[in-house]
């Protein structure tokens, strides 16, 4: 086997040194009745060449966004990943290192994470960020648990214009500790003042907002956050990090916890994972934060260095009193995010944000003019919008896919009462020609459908 260096001779020598005649002698603690008396029912190992052929055959069965044009979003986005990132993050030194438990030989990873934390704080304008969580949905679950512990209240209001998957993850992971997740109906995609006002009560631990919201609408959150604070609850905002080059960050408006999905920051879409859970909080919550945090210190010679800090929050020290059970996180995805943000800088991030908004606005305006299409929900949109179409959505999706275009995600799957609508995402990658083609194909499909 090409990954195992010890030869039969080596093994013989080692067994002699141990004083056994075969590996069997070392397996005596395992009761005979438990030994697998047959070989594993798996094929024998393949040569690398055969492995590559087998895996590539599976890859070719998929319709990927390189060979088609994707307008799919809802938490996973086709943003451009600069080539330098894969080379840098693919270096053995980052790729094959473990969690930095021995800081003297982990300064590479630790400094990158410190830089990452600093960048996330800048994006969201928050006091502290951790080294990453699994993804956006689990970051919300952790935020909700933190809010429950901090406020000693157990009810969470999660607005109905928040990503339904995020909410369901938080329900799964929060309910054993008695967290109740309630919704609050939106009004044409926007936060409804009366609904939220009616929902807030003295047992509300937190209100969860999304910015831009699930339908892509950018809403001013400052008044709502103030109202939430007046009720003694925390304001949790799920923010799109890519939007932070152009939009006022939730931290400026007093958000207590800002979480988000960091996939867009230099990570491939990879069928849903590995992604990057972003978690940032205000100073008062730092000692309750989940996950690893890197801090600055000095070494014995007075040099600046980095270590994991506030470890008394963590499971390997505090066990059942830990703030979270997380151990392995998404360090390499965070590393990619730090590299992405270093490459794009403030100017690039602003231009990416502008590109998204311009493309989204362009497509939305043109589609609105197509007979049989009704774009949904007014107000400024960032990179996503919803529209209704007077036709069968699966047939429309298939018509478009056959022409190399994934047109959007049917909202029906989310059970939000918008069963005849699609959610469309337009990133900075989409060209005017691609957007025009979308409009033309939609028009011709609808014409065909009528006829």
């Amino acid at each position, binding site marked *: 086997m090409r990954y195992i260096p010890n030869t039969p001779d080596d093994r013989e020598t080692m067994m002699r040194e141990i004083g056994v005649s075969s590996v069997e002698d070392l397996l005596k603690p395992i009761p005979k009745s438990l030994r697998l008396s047959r070989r594993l029912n798996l094929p024998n190992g393949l040569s690398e060449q055969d492995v590559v052929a087998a895996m590539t055959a599976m890859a070719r069965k998929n319709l990927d966004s390189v060979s088609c044009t994707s307008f799919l979003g809802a938490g996973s986005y086709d943003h451009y990943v600069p080539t330098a990132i894969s080379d840098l993050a693919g270096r053995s030194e980052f790729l094959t290192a473990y969690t930095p438990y021995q800081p003297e030989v982990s300064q590479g990873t630790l400094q990158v994470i410190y830089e990452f934390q600093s960048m996330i704080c800048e994006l969201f304008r928050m006091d502290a960020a951790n080294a990453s969580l699994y993804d956006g949905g689990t970051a919300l679950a952790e935020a909700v648990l933190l809010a429950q512990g901090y406020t000693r209240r157990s009810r969470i209001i999660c607005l109905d214009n928040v990503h339904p998957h995020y909410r369901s993850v938080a329900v799964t992971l929060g309910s054993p500790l008695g967290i109740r997740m309630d919704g609050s109906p939106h009004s044409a995609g926007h936060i409804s003042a009366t609904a939220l006002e009616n929902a807030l009560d003295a047992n509300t631990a937190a209100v969860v907002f999304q910015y831009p919201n699930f339908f892509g609408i950018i809403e001013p959150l400052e008044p709502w956050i103030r109202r939430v604070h007046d009720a003694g609850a925390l304001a949790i905002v799920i923010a799109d990090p890519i939007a932070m080059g152009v*939009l*006022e960050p939730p931290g400026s408006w007093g958000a207590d916890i800002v979480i988000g999905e960091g996939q867009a920051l230099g990570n491939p879409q*990879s069928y849903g994972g590995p992604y990057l859970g972003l978690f940032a909080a205000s100073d008062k919550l730092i000692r309750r934060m989940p996950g690893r945090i890197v801090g600055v210190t000095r070494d014995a010679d007075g040099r600046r260095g980095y270590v994991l800090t506030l470890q008394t929050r963590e499971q390997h020290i505090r066990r059942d009193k830990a703030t979270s059970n997380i151990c392995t996180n998404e360090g390499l995805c965070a590393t990619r995010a730090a590299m992405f943000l270093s490459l794009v800088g403030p100017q690039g991030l602003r231009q990416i944000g502008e590109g998204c908004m311009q493309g989204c*606005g362009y497509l939305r305006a043109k589609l609105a003019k197509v007979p049989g299409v009704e774009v949904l929900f007014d107000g400024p949109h960032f990179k996503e919008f919803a529209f209704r179409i007077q036709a069968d959505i699966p047939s429309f999706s298939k018509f478009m896919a056959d022409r190399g275009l994934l047109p959007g995600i049917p909202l029906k799957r989310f059970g939000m009462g918008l069963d005849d609508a699609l959610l469309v995402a337009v990133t900075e990658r989409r060209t005017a020609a691609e957007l025009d083609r979308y409009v033309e194909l939609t028009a011709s499909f609808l014409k065909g459908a009528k006829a």
Partner: protein
Amino acid sequence: MKRQQCIQSLQKEIPLVFELSRPGRIGYDVPTPVPSDSFKSVPSVLRRSTPPRLPELSENLVMRHYTNLSVRNHHIDRDFYPLGSCTMKYNPRVNEHMAAHPGFASLHPLQPAVTVQGALEVMYRLSEALKEITGFDAVTLQPAAGAQGELTALLMFRAFHKKQGNPRRKVIIPDSAHGTNPASIVIAGYEVVELPSGPDGLVNVDALKRILNEDVAALMLTNPNTLGLFESRIEEITSLVHGVGGLVYMDGANLNALLGICRPGDMGFDACHINLHKTFSTPHGGGGPGSGPVAVKRHLEPFLPLPVVTRQNDLLEWDWDRPDSIGRVLTFFGNYGVHVRALTYLLSMGGNGLHDVSEVAILNANYLRVKLREAYEVPFDRPSMHEVVLSGDRQKARGVRTTDIAKRLLDYGVHPPTVYFPLIVHEALMIEPTESESKETLDEFVEIMLQIDRDSVENPDLLKAAPYTTPVRRLDEAAAARALDVRYFKD
């Protein structure tokens, strides 16, 4: 002299990326946006008033900065990394290339199933292989890491018991358990009951009998346990727990010892998680991503997280119609890129290769046990599985702590073992060599450990101030927690 200069250059402080920034530098050009007035129409209250202070660097400066940082890491491609319970084996490069294939990397999780049949096939085949290796009936690939796998299984246990009429209140763990076990138990809404290990390092079956009752929802065990010892009475243990209606969970962190030798599903466990980033060779990435699939017996299948891959005729589909499911534990379907790597590894190794993995891992660990026992205390000196736990008690008596031993190893270019864990061994050094290491590497490690032991007698001060040759010297961790500095811009 030359070596001295090398160390000096390695120990030169690397500026933070923010300190390299100069206004106007650009590392990335964005195509001209599509013409539209939508950006201009955004109300000013929503527009960012001051830009984020991200660094401004050219692409080549970014390349140099992160390359310079990278060389300050120890990593498995460089040298030995015997961290116990972490299974730092070789991460084959072909796995990385397969995961980066656009046919896998450029897929959206909510594409119609007909457009991702190959992606679903990867998940289906991986699940089938994991079932065969572990001896269980069903698998979810959704959990993103081992700790999330544990929590997922506990939530399934909770749902199972609830369906039986009583969720119960307690979960038992041995005192040698990983820290994630008690932390997951609490989040799953249970109370932790700690079971002291017996004098042989194994579960004390009599003590277990005394605390078992109908309020016990589950027992969580690592097998082989964190001392590297196989729980020989495991069948008796699992049937005792079943006797009071409880379930038994196996923490699969140490699965690398069992491949093709025996299977948790045959031992009476009801569920177990599998760390793809340990046993199945996917890289640790400086902390993650990992992947923690959970394998379960038939009676727990209805409670698996939503959705589950199923095969209907020749079509693979997501099954959402599972009324007893605990729900979603991740936003999408799991760390798919890690699944691709693990399946690649499985195809490379095959059933025969996996069996070899465990045999050599066990042989390597026992070789180190025998070679090191003259100089170091081996609290449980009998055949161990894939890892062995030493105690630094003898060295401690000379004033040298296990931390000092660990830090001195760094000067030899070797990563220390896991230290001070399991908690039941004083001054513990938990060594897991894995099958990836050659006899020469192990011999060299033994030589280094013996030298450190001699130094603990002859020159203990040398050890107490180590390391000397690393990018930074011993760091003041207490100071970091006292004067907290976790971001560059302080205002």
